[in-house]
C-alpha cells in the first residue's frame, strides 16, 4: 500500500540565557507532554514527523525529522544569546532537505507545520531570513512568550502570531497542549477555503492570544 503523506512538524525553541531556570524546565516538560500526547493520537502517529531546532548563541537541529513513534525528545539547555536569524536559516535548510516534494509520480509531504517560540529580541541579523521564510510554503505559528518578546517583530515571519503573557509553567503547559491539538486532525470547518487558506488552528486557551 502506498505510504501516506507525512506531516513534518518543526519546533523552533528559544534556548537563550533568559530562558534559564523555570522557563526551560517548563519547555522541557511541555515538549515531553506534547510528544507523549501525540503518541496516543492515531492521526498524529500515522502522519506526524517531528524535529526540534534550538537557538541561543547559535542554532542547531537537535533532533532531525523523525517518525513520531521513534522520536526521542532532545535535551534542552538554556544559555547565551538569541540567534533567531540563524534558526530561520536552519529551518529553511532542513525543510529543503527533509520535506518530500510532490512530483508527477510521487505524493509529496504536507506543508510543514512550524511552532516558533521565543522570549526575547533576536541578537543576530534575522530580517532577510524572515523575508525568505515567509515566502516558503510553510505554516508557521510564532509565539512571543513573556514580556521580553516582540510580537510585532514576529509578524515579519508569519501572520500567525500568538502571545503568552508570561513564562509560568502553567502558561507554557497550556501552550504545548494547544500545539498538540493543532497537530491532531479535526473535522473541517464549513467556512470558505481558498488554495492558500492558512492551517485551521483550534481555539487557543485563555492564556494565549492571537495578535491581530
Amino acid at each position: 500500500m502506498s505510504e501516506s503523506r507525512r506531516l513534518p512538524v518543526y519546533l523552533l525553541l528559544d534556548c537563550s540565557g533568559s530562558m534559564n531556570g523555570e522557563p526551560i524546565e517548563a519547555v522541557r516538560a511541555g515538549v515531553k507532554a506534547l510528544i507523549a500526547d501525540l503518541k496516543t493520537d492515531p492521526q498524529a502517529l500515522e502522519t506526524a514527523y517531528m524535529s526540534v531546532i534550538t537557538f541561543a548563541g547559535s542554532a542547531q537541529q537537535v533532533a532531525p525529522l523523525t517518525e513520531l513513534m521513534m522520536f526521542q525528545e532532545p535535551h534542552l539547555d538554556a544559555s547565551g544569546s538569541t540567534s533567531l536569524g540563524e534558526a530561520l536559516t536552519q529551518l529553511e535548510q532542513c525543510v529543503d532537505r527533509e520535506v518530500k516534494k510532490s512530483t508527477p509520480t510521487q505524493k509529496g509531504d504536507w506543508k510543514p507545520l512550524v511552532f516558533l517560540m521565543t522570549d526575547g529580541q533576536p541578537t543576530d541579523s534575522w530580517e532577510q531570513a524572515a523575508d525568505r521564510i515567509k515566502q516558503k510554503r510553510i505554516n508557521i505559528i510564532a509565539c512571543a512568550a513573556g514580556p521580553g518578546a516582540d510580537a510585532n517583530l514576529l509578524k515579519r515571519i508569519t501572520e500567525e502570531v500568538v502571545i503568552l503573557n508570561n513564562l509560568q509553567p502553567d502558561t507554557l503547559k497550556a501552550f504545548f497542549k494547544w500545539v498538540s491539538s493543532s497537530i491532531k486532525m479535526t473535522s473541517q470547518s464549513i467556512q470558505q477555503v481558498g488554495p492558500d487558506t492558512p492551517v485551521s488552528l483550534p481555539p487557543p486557551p485563555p492564556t494565549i492570544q492571537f495578535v491581530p
Partner: protein
Amino acid sequence: MKVEKATLKDGRVIDYVYSDDPPAGGMKKTYFSPDRSYVVQFFHNESAGLDPQRMARLEYILTKYNPTIPHSQGGAQGVTPAAAEYFKKLFCWPTAIVVKPQVGIVAPTYPSNYFFAKGPFSGREKEGRWFTSPKLRGMLPDEERGAWINYFKLCILMARAVRRLHMAGLAHSDLSCRNILVDPSSGQSVVIDIDSLVVPNLFPPDVAGTPGYIAPEVLGTMHLPLTDPKRILPSVRTDQHALPVLIYEYLLSRHPLRGPKVNSTSSAEEDEQLSMGSKALFVENPQDMSNRPKDLTIPCSVLGPHLESLFMQAFVKGLHSPNDRPAASDWERALIKTWDMIYPCPNRSCSHKWFVLYDTNNVKCPFCNTRITGTVPILKLRKESRPGQWFQDGKIVIYDGIYFFKWHVYDNMFPGEEADRTPQAYCQFYQGQWILVNKNLTSLTSPGGNRVPAGQAVVLKDGAQLRLSQDAHGRIAEVQMLQL
C-alpha cells in the same frame, strides 16, 4: 474530586466532576459524572445558548428525531420499545440539554468495549483509524485487532445506524473514522457526536466533514462563499459517500480514493483537494486505471456481487453524481445478503479466516488462496411471488454450525432492529452427511412432504426442496450440493 452541579433545561440538577484540563474536541469539552456513567459536554462557543436555532436543533434531536426513545415516550415516529433498546447500542445519543453553568448536553459514556483494554494505547477511544491504517494496526496487540468477520459485522451495524438517521430525514454530515467508534474484538460500532446532526432546510451543517470522508462535490466547492448557490454542503447524499468509504476501508483496509495518481505537483494540499474533490477517482475504476495502486491484489469483487456492484455505483457512477449513490439501506441489505455467503477458510493461518463464497466455479479463499475441497451445501431461498411461482431471492452458503433465523424463513422479515434473533434451525455435518436440524420451526416440511418437528433433522441432498414454513410468506429452500 471537585464535583460541580449542572442545571438541565427541564430543571433537574446533575453532578459532574470539574477538571482544569478536560478532554476537548472541535466543538465541545467533556466532563465525566462522578460514577462515569454519563458525560456533561459544554460547547466551546458560550453563545450557543443564545442561538435559538441550535437550541431548537438540540430539542428536536432529543425528541422527535430520537430513535433511542420509544415514540410512546416522546421519541421519533415509529420507534417501538424494542427498536429504542436496539438503537441505544448503535448511537451515543444525547439525553438532556444543559443550561447552566454553560450550554451543553448530557450523553451516555461510551461503553467500556470502545476503549482499548490492552497495549500501549490502553484507555484510548477506539477510533476507526486505528484499525484501517496498516501502520497503526501494526502497533496494536493481537487481541485488539479483531477478526475480519467482526469488521463485517460492525459494517452492518454502521449501515443500519446511518439508515435509521436517513429514514428520519436526518443527515449525520460528518461520518468518519472519528465519529463512529468501533470494537473489532466484538464486532460492534457506535455513532457518536450526534448533536450536530443536519436537518435539511432547517438546521444547516456546522462542519464540512473530516478529510478523507468529505464528498467530492463538497470539497470541490469549498472555495465558494457559503451563500453561493453553487456551494454544496453536507447532506444525506454526502453521508452516502462517507458510509461506503468507511465500509470499503473496514473490509479491504485501504481508502477507495487514495491511489498513486498525482493531480497537482504544486503542493500536497492542492493535490489532496483535487484528488478527494473534483478529480477524485476510484482506485478500482474499471475504465480508468490511473489511480490503481500497483500492489492492489484484493479487489472489491472478492466481497461478492452485491457489494461489488454497490461499490461501483458509489465510487464510479455516483462519485461525482450524488443522486446516483446507493442509500444506506442498500448497503445494509447488501451486507446482510453477503453475510449469508460467508464461509470459513480452513487454513488456520489465514489472515482473514472467512471469505465470501460467491463464485461456485472457483472456490478458494482470496486472502490466502487456499482451495476448498469436499462438499459445500448451498440453500437457494425462494419466495412465492405469485401463487405457485417461486423466485429465488436469496442464497445461504452452509458451513458446520450455521444458524438460520426468521428472516431466512419468511420473505417479509428483515434482520433489522425489530428482528427476532432466536435461532430457528441450524446445519451440521453429522456422521458423514449434512443435516438441517429444526430448533423452533413449526412447519418445516421435508422434500417428501413430511413435517419435521423441532429437535428432528432432515438430510440435505442435491436438488431437494424444503418448505421452511407453511405459513404465509414461508420460503422454500432448494439444496445444491457443491462438490469440490
